[in-house]
């Protein structure tokens, strides 16, 4: 998809370096950097979840930030979603996907938390059923 960044060159035009060699060496570097970053982020999130150094109520937020960062690393280094001109459609589709995911997650959580809060307790319910 995006490994072929120069598909829109003029016909008959050839790069001076053979495309396969050029891609192989830079591609290897990209995947290795991605792996290193992902390992660092994973180790950090396991550490954050188990340490007592960090203020406990801040841990979930920290984990969320680390997870989002790692998803970004995967998207850029493994799936090669870049801002290049031939990747515009992919980025737009991704943005729409993220919007839907956000709506589903945030919507469900807000609605269910609200319902839970407004739900009557067990004793209150008993009082309603047996008014005196």
């Amino acid at each position: 998809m995006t490994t072929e960044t120069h598909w829109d060159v003029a016909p008959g035009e050839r790069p001076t370096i053979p495309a396969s060699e050029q891609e192989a060496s830079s591609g290897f570097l990209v995947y290795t950097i991605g792996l290193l970053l992902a390992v660092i982020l994973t180790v950090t999130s396991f550490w954050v979840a188990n340490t007592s150094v960090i203020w406990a109520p801040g841990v979930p937020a920290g984990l969320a930030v680390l997870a989002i960062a790692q998803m970004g690393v995967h998207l850029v280094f493994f799936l090669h979603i870049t801002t290049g001109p031939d990747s515009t459609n992919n980025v737009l589709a991704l943005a729409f996907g993220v919007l839907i995911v956000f709506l589903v997650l945030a919507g469900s959580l807000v609605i269910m938390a609200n319902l839970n809060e407004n739900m009557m307790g067990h004793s209150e319910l008993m009082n309603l059923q047996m008014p005196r």
Partner: protein
Amino acid sequence: MNVAVEMDAVRHGELLDISEAGPAPKRIIAGFGFWIFLLSDIVMFSALFAAYAVLAKASAGGLTGGQLFDQRNVAIETALLLLSSYSCGMMSLAINSQRYLATFLGAAVTFLLGSAFLALELNEFQGMIALGATPQRSAFLSAFFALVGSHGLHVTVGLAWLVLMMVQLSLRGFQDVVVRRLHCFSLFWHALDIIWVLIFTVVYLMGVLP
């Protein structure tokens, strides 16, 4: 007026006109279509995540996440899946330069790491069920098995697909069709890793917090 002309010249230098470039190659169109499928799959997972997040505390007096999850096991699973994603990347580099041996090697490593992941996950499920933590025990466990189980199902499908692609590659060689399908496979495999990142964060790390 002058500025506009200059801007136009710059744009021409960078990129051909849409009308001159012609239609995008089939490889890019196929990749885009598969990308749309992956996004719809991620939307499906977001519904499972929402269900899990709502029901995470509804353990109905049974075993909770803190008692069931083993972080060492999860760390090994994460490492296996991450490394298999890396070897899948190495495989797609080998495909780009059309090297048979490197492609088969990358596929074999990816397959072994993926099946080791699957074996560990099934082992974990078995251990949980042996403790009485079955999907029908509580809403929390239903949501857990639905979410993690459907990720495991995706991994299983991915492994079967990989075997199929290796058979096709050995029969047909690096034909355009085969190369396109292999690229779609690597997109699928990397997307599964992205979903696993969310699973280990939301289910296994946040679920254990007091």
